[in-house]
């Protein structure tokens, strides 16, 4: 059976919010009988875009993490529901039955990802249903990927084996795998949001003027061994990315012409070491 999957490329999210707005457009004020009741105009974020800044100054970066119902295969919410209020469709989509779920506020806490929202006015739990009502009417994809213009959100409908192979080949990962929920939302370049970087600019003085050290050799050393290396760019900058948060002691070893220097540090969050200066 082919099932739906959502792929989120974190490197391609610019926080444009088209997906979030499309979901509001689709559900606010609309009843889709058997599928969903209207979403309240404000307060629900069925697509919730989280943001994170890393580092500082000229070498900072920022990333966004669009999150939504993970359509989990082992969904804690389905287990927590009584009366068949939540169910898994054969195509992988987790549905909340708007009639059966009435009053079941406990379902909000059942989702470890915080993606079930309580509709106070209608007294129902709600979430993003992958636009099942549209897919059932022949739409080729849900609105969140249809409106994404930056290549961040895409969908795949395929056999699970095929998806697992794709995930492996493209290094896709689910959020919080330790929960064992088997999410159907896959993230690419997640390190942009979850990992850390060490960055800096290397400079020297030539003829009394400060100049960038271009193409200096920079090595990242951990526990005595080199874990990564790169050359500084035209601004004398380097940035090692994908490092674990709070991962402890590192050293940055820089070779500029004949001089080699080592700068030790303890990594907690992403850091800009500032200007590292060499004598000319």
């Amino acid at each position, binding site marked *: 059976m082919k099932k739906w999957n959502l792929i989120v490329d974190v490197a391609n999210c610019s926080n444009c919010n088209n997906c979030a707005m499309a979901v509001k457009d689709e559900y606010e004020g609309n009843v889709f009988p058997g599928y969903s009741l209207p979403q309240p105009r404000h*307060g629900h974020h069925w697509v919730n875009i989280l943001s994170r800044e890393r580092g500082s100054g000229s070498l900072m970066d920022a990333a966004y993490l669009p999150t939504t119902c993970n359509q989990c295969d082992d969904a804690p919410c389905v287990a927590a529901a009584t009366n068949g209020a939540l169910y898994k469709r054969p195509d992988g989509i987790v549905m909340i039955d708007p009639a059966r779920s009435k009053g079941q506020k406990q379902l909000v806490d059942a989702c470890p990802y915080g993606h079930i929202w309580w509709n106070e006015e209608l007294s129902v739990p709600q979430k993003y249903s992958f636009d099942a009502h549209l897919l059932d*009417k022949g739409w080729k994809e849900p609105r969140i990927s*249809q409106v994404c213009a930056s290549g961040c959100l895409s969908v795949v409908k395929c056999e699970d084996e095929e998806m697992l192979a794709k995930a492996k080949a493209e290094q896709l990962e689910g959020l919080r795998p330790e929960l064992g929920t088997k999410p159907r939302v896959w993230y690419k370049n997640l390190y942009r949001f979850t990992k850390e970087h060490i960055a800096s600019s290397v400079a020297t003085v030539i003829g009394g003027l400060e100049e960038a050290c271009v193409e200096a050799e920079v090595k990242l050393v951990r526990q005595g061994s080199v874990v990564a290396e790169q050359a500084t760019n035209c601004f004398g900058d380097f940035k090692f990315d994908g490092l674990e948060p709070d991962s402890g002691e590192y050293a940055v070893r820089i070779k500029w012409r004949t001089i080699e220097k080592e700068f030790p540090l303890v990594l907690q969050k992403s850091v800009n070491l500032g200007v590292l200066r060499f004598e000319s």
Partner: protein
Amino acid sequence: MAIIKPNVVERLAALELRIILACMAPFFRVAARRSESMRKMLAQMDFTIEIRLVDKSIARWFAFQGGVIRTGSDMAEKPDATLLIDSARDAVKLFVPWRSYMDMIHLMKNFRTDFEGDDRYVTHFMDIAGEAQFAFSKFGISRKDGCTRYVNNTNGGAVNVDVKDGKIVRISNLELTDEDAPAWTIEARGKKFTPPRRTSVASFTQALKSTIYSKDRLLYPMKRVDFDPNGERNPQYRGVSGYERISWDEALDLVAGEIKRVKREHGPGAILNSTGSHHTWGNLGYYLSARNRFFNIIGTTYAAHNPDSWEGWYWGAMHHWGNSVRLGMPDGYGTVEDCLKHCEMIVFWSSDPEATHGVYSAQEGTIRRQWAKELGIKFVHIDPFYNHTAQFMGGKWLAPRPDTGNALALAIAYVWMTEGTYDKWFVANRTTGFEEWQDYVLGKEDGVPKTPEWQEGESAIPARDVRSLAREWAKRKTYLAPGGRAGFGGACRNATGIEWARSMVYLAAMQGIGKPGVNIGNLEIGSPLDTRFYFPGYAEGGLSGDLHGTGEAQHLYQRMPHVVTMNTVQQTVPRLRIPEAIMNGEAAGHVMDGRTIEAQFKEAHFPAPGYSKIKMYYKYGGSHLSTMVDSNRFARMYQHEGLEFVVNQSIWFEGEAKFADVILPACTNFERWDIGETCSASGYSTHSFLSNNYRVITLQHKCIEPLGESKSDFEIFKQLASRLGMGAYFSEGTTELGWCKRLFDSTDLKQHISWKQILKKGYFVVPAPPVEKRDPVSWRWFYDGRPKDLPEVAPLPSDYAGKWREGLQTQSGKIEFVSSSLVRFAPDDPERPTMSRYIPSWEGHRSEAYKRFPLQLISPHARHTFHTMTDGKDSYVNDIADHRVLIDGWYYWIVRIHPEDAAKRDIRNNDLVEMHNDRGSVILAAQVTERIAQGTVHSYESSANYSPIGEPGRSPDRGGCVNVLTPSRSIIKRSHSMAANSCLVEIRRWQEEIKA
């Protein structure tokens, strides 16, 4: 060949006319059976109209009563109106459905058709006839889910609109099909790039359903409770008092009555009209179309716009490279292909296309920039804010102090001059005045070499980085992107924007603009689309008939026969000086007119000799509060006793609408007919659709009925005109859908798609030209020394000093480092010297006020609202975390502040803060972020809410109008301009309680 005698022709025509007239009533009845709107129209008024030839030889009357039509083939006893036609031949021309509009306006202009009696009945009769014509038309596509899919268009892309039971279910971007023209492909560096088969939308377009169905929609006409046109007018309570509902008849009678009264009592010019820009989409109902037509025919003092989004280009860059028709901004033909093929680095300088959407092109450019990334093109971002494009594209971020970009530009030039790394051939052969400027940059003239170290003291960018940037730029084929689409927004809108913009021209020249891979742009414009296919953009004025105030003369006036409209009032008020014009009775400002460089040297004074001061203000469209500098002035102005009457025609109850005496509720363009192309401006921004991946022309369906009692702007203007006896002149007897057809017929569309087809489907994609017919690249002709080969009539022929198309618009025909136009006009102007110099900002880090207000506010165009059009209004965008923050039940606008500046003030994330200076104060939510340089704060302009917590114009605003803080001073005296991005402020935690 037999000659048919004239009397035979006339006799045949008489027969034909009798048949046509006899068929009319049955036709109306059949149409009424088919169409509900037709039934409504028939029932709307009871009246008798007579149609007859002037000599009374043929006549027929029609009586409408309670929706029933009676008719007779003779003269009416007591008609409410009579339509007169000169001859049967003329009448036939007028009444056949396939009439030639050229014939029709010819008859009108020569009084061969005329009317007697009440204009309202004539106009309504013509509307009935027009409506009947389309009663059998089909539009929209039925969908499986029971919806009908219509098409409309917006500032942020074309959209499908799914409607069920008269209500909009969803609004979504277009998916193209095999029926639509295929995409283009660019081959570059061994790769092929083709855009996806869909169009994109901006977030604010995706949120439009919530602004259409908004609790802030004006659903019926209203009058301020303490405004009595025959008694106390109480102007002091404008912006304070509430409103009561009135009928359309009351409202229209009142407004029409005031128009007549102020003209009679005060003379011409007493009525001021001003409009916000782009609050709807479509060529016909637009602010440059129906509005101009109406105000031209009633005689109006217009607010003259400043070049609000491109100040520095207009007042500065234009003097060095011409481009006056584009208001000083660059063109961008063919640059997508050239950039992808040859460019190695793009310098985004005050340029955030991911947030500013190429003005109207949604996210069309995003994919093209991703291709650049894929090709390994490098990026540099110069902006005090780590903007969304920098976040998305990556690359080096350099954050100058606001207002100091020109120091950085001069230092880059300094490095190139001292290291000899500029295009010396180009400078010698294609420019003038370089040596003089070089002497200034090197310090030979003033003793101050403009070194990277010197600039560091101004911009705070490390000298080291400037040298690196200058060298990399000289080494690599580089595209310079100054401003959002190149040429819009950002640094051109500050106190040094004129100097900055002209330095951008210089830097482009020094690297030989026009050679492969070296040009202006950021892939936001320059797609290989068809520029030879004619369809007008909004600036061509639609049905305005306004040859003076729009670009109609360019094409549309010839293409779509319609009657010209001419405003007789030779007086304007500079828009930024409206408050002064009303409160002090005097104002002045230089003119924005792109016909030639020298037009801007003229200063217009208010009042113009012999004209009245402003007694009535007819405000239309989007709000000036929040988009115009020192906004509190506008609030205070409304309470001035000299302003006798204020009417506001608005879609929403917000901003300035809350200061009116009478409010006329307009509907959105989803509730009326229109026709327009995505991202097409024409006029001052010819071929702006090159920002798109497809040319998408839409027949903008009337998707739903106007909400409540709201009406289309066209309808409101028509009914007012009718009360002044000019309804027929205003509408030319054509309905809004009829005008769509007239415009359709004027374009190249009809060679590709039938009216019936486009009416049903709603859009047409203009095929992209084959590779060999693509437009050349901008500036290549200039670089090569050939005649200009780009498809624009700019400069105008008389502005060439040599042969047509040879050289630029400047006097020398070259890029001028020392401007000949400024040498001629004001060579000693210290505010705008004849060449770019570093002039410290008059509201910057060297100003006296900096001691008290040590933070520099930049307020760029917002990302999630187009002007004030999508913000507020209970819109979905309020839920975007980076747009507004909900605190204690109120959605606060955001100010972005560096962590150290925040710490100094004990401000934490999401704290309420008061940002203030001597001009005003705004209560905002703080976003503490590394993304803004220390010493600078960032908050978008264009909040739709203006919510003073006390007296309007004199108390803190918690709506988020940061423009209450910006200076009203023009960048330079010899201009009419704003420096919104030069604004000194201080911020403190807000700890007072706010009464709801």
